[in-house]
């Protein structure tokens, strides 16, 4: 079971609480987590990564285990603590704007 934390606006959109859990078969990577997240919550499609290019939206970041994983390859394994469910993958909105 993978734990994911969403920023507030995406929680509202997906009608979920601060943290959600998703099941994933196979390797635990940014891509597999986001694929599973968007399949379970289709209203999030396009809000975290671009609908066409699949690129992370510029003002969003991926954190886990106190590390910024935003620039890791989408298919790189996430930390063991995320894969085991001990730590969440945190999707964070940049603190910016007015």
């Amino acid at each position, binding site marked *: 079971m993978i734990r994911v934390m969403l*920023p*507030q*606006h*995406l929680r509202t*959109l*997906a*009608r979920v609480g601060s943290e959600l859990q998703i099941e994933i078969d196979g390797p635990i990577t940014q891509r597999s987590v986001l694929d599973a997240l*968007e*399949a*379970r*919550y*289709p*209203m999030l*499609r*396009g*809000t*975290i990564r*671009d*609908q*066409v290019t699949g690129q992370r*939206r510029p*003002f*969003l970041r991926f954190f886990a285990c106190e590390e910024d994983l935003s620039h890791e390859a989408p298919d790189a394994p996430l930390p063991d603590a995320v894969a085991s469910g001990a730590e969440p993958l945190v999707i964070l*909105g*940049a603190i*910016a*704007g007015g």
Partner: protein
Amino acid sequence: MSKVRVLVGTRKGAFILESDGKREKWDVSGPHFAGWELYHLKGSPADPNRIYASQTSGWFGQIIQRSDDGGKTWHQPGTPPGEPPAPGPPKAASNKFVYDTSAETGKPLTTHQFYDGTQHPWEFKRVWHLEPSLTDPDLVYAGVEDAALFRSTDGGENWKELPGLRGHGTGPKWQPGAGGMCLHTIILDPGNPQRIWIAISAAGAFRTDDGGKTWKPINKGLYSQYIPDPRAEVGHCVHHVAMNSKRPGVLFMQKHWDVMRSDDAGDNWREISGNLPTDFGFVIDVHAHEPETIYVVPIKSDGEHFVPDGKLRVYRSRTGGNEWEALTKGLPQRDCYVNVLRDAMAVDSLDKCGVYFGTSGGQVYASADAGDSWNPIVRDLPGVLSVEVQTLK
């Protein structure tokens, strides 16, 4: 008794203002979608309970919202209201706007002119304007940035570009204005479902007479001194176009500079700025019952973008242009420095015609007497991006 429902999009959410036909006391609901930019909301003329909304964010991209109960509840089309999200393939792609690149639809252009003069690929950013069909609640058009026209025939669940607009040949000359390269105006012809007008900053106005398959630029008569060829076929920064639905084909335009008029469906334009204190502005609209009565809000150009002299004045022409009178009763006439953006004025169809506009300072003003006097419905909303009105029987 008739009612009016004013749909207000702001930089931090949507608000719905409702009143009876007297338009004196108002109920305010909102913010809906708090914290998001609501570029535009518009109700279906065929079903007033059906309202479409463009919810956008620099962080999270584009969301389309829909209400089927007059704005009380909202949902993303394809995700029924109140229904928990279900696992499995998405039922819809309501926020998916993908430019058409297929050869069979005419190989639409893939680049436009960028700020530095180079060619730049089309990149979807947001929906500026939603225009529901006059007859079918499930048919709705979306004007987007980077400029293109999309259409949904299933109530906003899925969107498909009308590629003929980008594909007709002038796309490489289109370029973004300060607000981005946006398709911001969509006007449907009530007498001819095959005819649609659109406008783009900064490209100009375009018209289709075959339901969106082919388009032609309609900018003859426009003069823009800030582009290499001031009378070019495209490249003009048209800010907004308005039409009285009872007189299709007579169009009024607020260009970056110049207020313009066409009496032949846009084939030719002539300037009607007349005695306006400045011919720069964003909004323009037409009285619901008097097709020669038009409204603009002159703005001090070009580096300031607020009303001149600290006075908020709507200007009205009852002669179809050239002769303008300042409407000031009830509007601040000192220390006022707001802007009124291009989609932030609307009229109702009551008698007398109501006129509404919203400001960058968060005020929404209403006039229940065609502009003779004004009152603020609300004073302290976030900056207003758009105002639309529904007249409810």
